């Protein structure tokens, strides 16, 4: 594929969604560098994350300007400092910057929004975050009836079905599956286990 701006081969491909419109850019190394689009193959994820943040805007996500001045009440780290260093100042920063961090996390963690996995057996809530009462962004409106790990498993199966439908060129079916995945991800389609598993004890 040729570069959008010259005759060289395009090596950098960027796809962004703006107001539901898919925008594709195909650039060669030089044009990409001139336009400030830098891609480092196999770059460590925190460097990429830092790159997104220092650019100020991640595609489709507006960074709220006034939040730049807000600081974590515990350690006084500002979001601007975080953007510079890529490191948080204390565990409470996660709550202080929740609104800005969640979309970044979702992107850096390739869609992962919620912890699935081990939990400390003995959990003191002091200093630990509790679930936000009003999640700012990207949280399902109705909590899923399935534990998140199971929900992820269902979603993984659906994504596989989607891939296989696309591979077999069954596009109508693929579109249906895609919509269902979106529904489950948004919480619009609640997942309910056929028979309720026994309640898991031990973890608050």
């Amino acid at each position, binding site marked *: 594929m040729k570069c959008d701006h010259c005759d060289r081969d395009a090596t950098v491909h960027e796809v962004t969604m703006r107001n539901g419109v898919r925008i594709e850019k195909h650039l060669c190394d030089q044009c990409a560098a001139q336009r400030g689009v830098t891609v480092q193959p196999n770059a460590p994820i925190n460097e990429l*994350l830092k790159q997104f943040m220092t650019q100020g805007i991640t595609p489709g996500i507006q960074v709220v300007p006034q939040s730049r001045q807000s600081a974590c009440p515990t350690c006084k780290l500002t979001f601007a400092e975080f953007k510079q260093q890529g490191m948080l100042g*204390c565990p409470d920063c*996660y709550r202080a910057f929740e609104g800005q961090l969640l979309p970044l*996390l979702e992107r850096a*963690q390739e869609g992962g929004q919620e*912890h699935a996995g081990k939990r400390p057996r003995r959990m003191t809530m*002091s*200093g630990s*975050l509790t679930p936000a009462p009003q999640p700012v962004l990207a949280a399902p409106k109705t909590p899923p009836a399935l534990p998140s*790990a199971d929900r992820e498993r269902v979603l993984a199966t659906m994504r596989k079905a989607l891939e296989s439908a696309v591979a077999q060129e069954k596009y109508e079916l693929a579109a249906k599956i895609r919509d269902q995945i979106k529904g489950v991800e948004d919480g619009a389609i609640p997942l309910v286990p056929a028979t309720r598993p026994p309640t898991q004890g031990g973890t608050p």
Partner: protein
Amino acid sequence: MNDDVPFPAPNEGDLSALERGAEWLKGEGESTDVVFSSRVRLARNLANTRFAIKATKADRQQTLDTCRDCIMKAGLDVSLAWADLHTMNPLDRSMLVERHLISKPHSKGRGTNQADDPRGVALSAPDERLAIMVNEEDHLRIQCIRSGLALSQAWRDADTVDDKLEAQLDYAFSPRLGYLTACPTNVGTGLRMGVMLHLPGLRLTGEIEKVKRAADGMSLVVRGFYGEGSEAVGDLFQISNQTTLGRSEGEVLRMLELEIIPKVVEYERVSRRELLAKRRVGLEDQVWRAWGELTHARLLTTDEAMRALSLVQLGVVTGLIRPRTPSAPGPTLTARLLHMLLLFIQPAHLQRVVGREINQEQRRVARATFLRSRLMGLAEDR
């Protein structure tokens, strides 16, 4: 160039002690023709305690004291040694980095970019399977290493240590986001699980790029010998999970151990078979040239030596280079010996071999001399 560097006979007793550890170089276990080692790392932080960039030196010291006391009294089923890194001499710190027991940034004081930043490491002795770094980027980093493809075992080890520490320490944890870490890219499980692979076949056939692209599409990351940002020198690659939020430890483990890694291992074996079948003479030439370099060169950089050792290793596992049957008891040319040499040619280890600090130029001489002395006469040219 100084070519009259004295090369004292290494203190064999001292070196054999160093050889005994280094679990990742043992060459034991499953799929060791391709998989050097399996590694699991857990990032953990103390509740109500500032991370490195906002902590004072007193905070850091307190974290160090709390964690060290807890680790040493946790009743872990191993014999532990503790080392304060801020007071340790830089050469010894570099040796720990070369043995993959601490990270390079931890050696330098990553948290605050200050060499005197209070920090330390607890090591299981003598097997070096467990290393718990204190005051690295996170307050605690639990690392478990096993030789060969043994991720389940490494995970069980790390999980057990984590349970025992957690019984005494309050971790920073959010029910929604999981274990809270200094860098948000580790939040969730705080888990990095991966293997160190020797992939000369895939490099020589040019298929390695496909593996990298495939890994990229599966939220995995392929890195070099010394981790983040390092080159894949000596055809050694680390493949590990990239994301930590949304997938449980079990899911990551199953994906890597049952699906991805066996496929890469098989892919490498197929590449080696193809090279033997279709480019045998070319391959023979390369591995024997490497042998010639290691047994005859007078100056060798670390990278040159690692590249040659990689090819010789390939020659040994494919049967192109045959170990000579020793007429008297002595070292034989084995994967384990080559692994150990890989470690001892690293700058800090080499200085330990020589017994004093030497500069880069002197190291090139010492490295070539050391390799000649260890390898000469061990292979049979049919």
